[in-house]
């Protein structure tokens, strides 16, 4: 019974939705059954998967750009006081800019296309990563560096064998924050621009194919869930040694 309890909530929500859609009688609220069949249709004819593939592609490419730019910059700013003093004012000026604010400039500079989507997503995802990398770099225990240096490790060796592993848990936290931001901004740029799941949702709504639209929203939710789940799986596989990921003994 206790194991079934989570299902009760879902079932109650579905029943409530069904009752509400019957009572309202508008086409704005199709029944769960209609949405499910629309979802299956969209998946089978490939529309949804193609759109989600595009969206996920933009998201991951943007994240990749953000990682390759934000992480080294953040680590540098975290480890070197000079870099921090040099770049902090600029960063503080750019940081309050909400992520969607970059869409119009990117549109003017790059036109519509994958380059623009990736740029905007990259910019939006860059800040959480940069801040996390900076914090991780600042929180580096000094004895680790000193030990490595006194054992005769070179700069490159220290960077790859000491700094990188020490900062990895912090970076994972940043990535976990950046992931939903990247997906949201990817969908938004697609809504303003041209293709992918964002465009698909808007088109379905404007052509009044409401069950399909809900199915697409659910598909995006599943994509977001899959991204988060995949990331946490990777974290547990790669960072099993970090204290934050070790399984705690059950609390009394």
């Amino acid at each position, binding site marked *: 019974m206790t194991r079934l309890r989570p*299902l009760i*909530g879902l079932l109650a929500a579905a029943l409530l939705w069904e009752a509400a859609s019957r009572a309202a009688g508008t086409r704005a609220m199709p029944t769960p059954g209609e949405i499910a069949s629309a979802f299956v249709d969209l998946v089978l004819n490939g529309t949804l998967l193609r759109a989600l593939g595009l969206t996920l592609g933009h998201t991951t490419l943007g994240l990749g750009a953000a990682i390759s730019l934000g992480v080294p910059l953040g680590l540098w700013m975290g480890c070197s006081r000079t870099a921090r003093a040099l770049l902090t004012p600029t960063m503080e000026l750019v940081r*309050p800019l*909400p992520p969607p604010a970059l*869409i119009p400039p990117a549109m*003017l500079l790059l036109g519509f296309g994958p380059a623009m989507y990736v740029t905007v997503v990259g910019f939006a995802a860059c800040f959480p990563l940069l801040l996390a990398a900076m914090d991780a770099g600042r929180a580096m225990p000094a004895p680790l560096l000193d030990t490595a240096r006194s054992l005769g490790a070179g700069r490159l060796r220290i960077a790859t064998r000491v700094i990188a592993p020490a900062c990895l848990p912090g970076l994972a936290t940043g990535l976990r924050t950046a992931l939903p931001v990247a997906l949201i901004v*990817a*969908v938004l740029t697609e809504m303003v621009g041209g293709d992918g799941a964002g465009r698909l949702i808007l088109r379905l709504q404007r052509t009044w194919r409401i069950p399909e639209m809900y199915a697409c929203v659910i598909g*995006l939710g*599943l994509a977001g869930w899959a991204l988060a789940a995949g990331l946490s799986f990777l974290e547990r596989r790669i960072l099993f040694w970090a204290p934050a990921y070790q399984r705690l003994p059950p609390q009394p």
Partner: protein
Amino acid sequence: MIAQVGRLFPLGLLLVWESLCRLGVIDARFVPAPSAILACLVTPGSAGDLLDQMGHTLLRTLGGFVLGGAAGLGLGLTCGVCRRFDKALLPLLEILRPIPSVAIIPVAILFLGLGNGMNVAVAAFACAWPVFVAVRDAVRAVDPLLCDTARICGLTQGRAFRLVVLPASLPGAVTGLHTALGIAVAVAISSEMVASSDGLGHLAITASFSHREPLAWAAVLAMGLAGGICSLVFSFLRRLVERSRPGLLGVQYRKGKRP
């Protein structure tokens, strides 16, 4: 010395941008020089327009933040206190939470039509989540010792909730609210870009589609300003509360007085 250079760094970037535009390296039709953007900010007509649209955006942000924050607080407190309710609701919330908030825009248009209500609802949906998660975790992390002490002292459940759980989870809630405010600004602007007839988001998109590039860039600048204003006001209020009620929003240590 380096700090001075750092402070002058943005200015240097602007100078480089300006000179590149003047020299024709950057196409000034698409990327106007900073001076042109500044002129657009100072010209009475466009400045008034920008201020007006910024007012719309800020109002929507505030509306979404208040509604979403209240919803997140209520839901988070309930889920944190009542395990059974939490378990029943969890799968539903775990399905709703990963949906990118802008994907809700078409659904909101269906129910609320185009207009303020839709923008506010989308912003509220987006910023309810961080508050919910922060409050629920904060309530769960309340020291069991405190709760046990309250029970031993004979406090009823209602009083214990009001006097122990609520103050102990306040710092976590404030952190969640700060995150939510940034999200509210971003999502309000996003929803204006996709479906609205006013606001900064709408202004930036229409201006860039209608060859008024300086105005579009000025609108982007105004978005940054709106985000900055929200963050500053929140920090200011928080500091005000901290000064009048020390320790209310988290334990404070004076320098050198760590226990």
